């Protein structure tokens, strides 16, 4: 065995695994155990219900769209914060973390107050026939809000450590601005961007507190899957709630694995380009 400089590998690994087991795996095991009470037939019945499918579609498609929006605008914000010096930059930078700190219910109420038909923005939007609050766009808006900091905060350190010589070299070798961005900068950023994307996505899929206030919660239209879980609990249907939770967990897990695959490919692609 290779000698390590710092001792304590066995001890720290043991603690890490025990901690992970206690904090993450044990509750998940309890969930799986509860969910198993529903049986295969119950699971099929649950998954074939149009209402369940509509709620899952809204939760996952909405979260996907919100994560895409966050990836785009998060990259922009991170770029501005890292590359430019302007008055108020530190304040601006601190604002990015607010969605982390705010209780989600407060965020939901604030967004609803703003976008409701009698709200400051909602009033204008309604007069143009655009409905945000109490409709699916409201769900996506809340998801964008809670997921926003992830992309910015993951990208910032990587952007800061980018070697500017490479950009200068690209320009001096005759690359256009666009070529420099898409062929030199972006490939290096993509793996990190995907990490931020995955975090924002995972956050949005599980979001309940803020979405509930703005969604309208109409079945088949603006009802998210976590609300369906709460409804099952209200019916004292613990097994059904746990089963739906398991379905969401599995779907999220598959998505996250796919994203990490994508990350590895993009990492290799970036290496090939350089």
């Amino acid at each position, binding site marked *: 065995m290779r000698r390590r400089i710092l001792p304590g590998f066995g001890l720290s690994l043991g603690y890490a695994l025990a901690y992970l087991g206690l904090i993450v795996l044990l509750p998940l095991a309890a969930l799986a155990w509860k969910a198993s009470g529903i049986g295969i037939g119950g699971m099929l019945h649950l998954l074939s*219900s149009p*209402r369940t499918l509509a709620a899952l579609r809204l939760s996952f498609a909405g979260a996907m769209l919100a994560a895409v929006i966050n990836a785009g605008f998060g990259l922009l914000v991170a770029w501005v914060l890292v590359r430019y010096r302007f008055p108020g930059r530190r304040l601006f930078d601190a604002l990015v973390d607010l969605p982390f700190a705010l209780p989600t219910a407060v965020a939901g109420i604030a967004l*609803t*107050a703003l976008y*409701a*038909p*009698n*709200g400051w923005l909602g009033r204008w939007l309604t007069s143009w026939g655009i409905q945000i*609050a*109490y409709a699916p766009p409201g769900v996506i808006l809340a998801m964008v809000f809670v997921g926003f900091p992830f992309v910015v905060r993951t990208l910032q350190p990587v952007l800061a450590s980018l070697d500017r010589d490479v950009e200068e070299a690209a320009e001096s070798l005759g690359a256009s601005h666009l070529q420099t961005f898409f062929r030199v900068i972006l490939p290096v950023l993509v793996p990190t961007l995907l990490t931020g994307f995955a975090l924002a996505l995972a956050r949005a899929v599980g979001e309940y507190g803020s979405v*509930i*206030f703005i969604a*309208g*919660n*109409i*079945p*088949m*239209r603006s*009802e998210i899957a976590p*609300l369906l879980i*709460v*409804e*099952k*609990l*209200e*019916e*004292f*249907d613990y097994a*059904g709630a746990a089963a739906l939770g398991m379905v969401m967990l599995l779907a999220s897990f598959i998505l996250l694995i796919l994203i990490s695959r994508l990350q590895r490919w993009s990492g290799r692609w970036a290496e090939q380009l350089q």
Partner: protein
Amino acid sequence: MKKSRVILALLGTVFAASVAARDVTLLNVSYDPTRELYRDINAAFAAQWKAQHGDTVTIQMSHGGSGKQARSVVDGLPADIVTLALAYDIDAVADHGLLARDWQKRLPNNSSPYTSTVVFLVRKGNPKGIRDWADLIKPGVQVITPNPKTSGGARWNFLAAWGYALKQPGGNEAKARAYVQALYQHVPVLDTGARGATNTFAQRGVGDVLVAWESEALLAQQELGKGTFDIVVPSISILAEPPVAVVDSNIDKHGSRAVAEAYVKFLYSPQAQAIEAKNFYRPRLPEVSARYAAQFPKVNTFTIHDVFGHWRQAQAKFFADGAIFDQIGPGH
């Protein structure tokens, strides 16, 4: 010498008193819109208990959605007393063996010391001319009511609408179903709780009419100004009976049976009935109701028992997974 004897005697008295007087703590697990009510009730009960027994009673409260609260008690929240929005939620606690299954027969009036009914809150001047249930399904009328799957209060709303349609001339199950289905087509926002629905209607300005408990409608009117909303009493409505019970296995464990039982009985006393009336719940005692007659207009009501049998049956028929609400609710 004399002085020290006096001090000793005094000390002795204080000691004896502190041995005799016990500090008792009760936990009352209640539903959401009873915060104001039980704050007043608890103060009055503690004062009365102190005067009669010399013991200091502290009553802790837990508030939340009725179903969620019942689940917490089932899962081990050590409630001495449950005061929930509907009997079905206390039935669920009883099903897990925490109290006798016939709990509802232990106190007068189906164990509901106070009642409410379902009324309409409309915008000032009633611009859409809402007079009765039939007006709620007119074209262009938007109705706010929370989701009966997540809100105990909303289940009473649903059953009130169903009972109205059933009791119309020529009314039957099919017509009731058609009416309630049409009603939920007019619901643009389905909040998860009663307070949320009140806020959507009052603060966000969504909808023309809020279907709500009278207690909630009166409170909204008081909090948000009498000039902003009008209350419309429909031709017929349901008698909402939020029940109370002591949780046998918990009070026996805590040794708090005497005080817990006194607490729930206190809710029927003239003093408590007046507090309930002041907090917009309809009192049971005729002499107290008479004093608050202006606040509570006469309503033609039916009970769960009259129309739907037992809460368990109503729950299974309307609100269980795949039952009638799932078939005809919004989005259908």
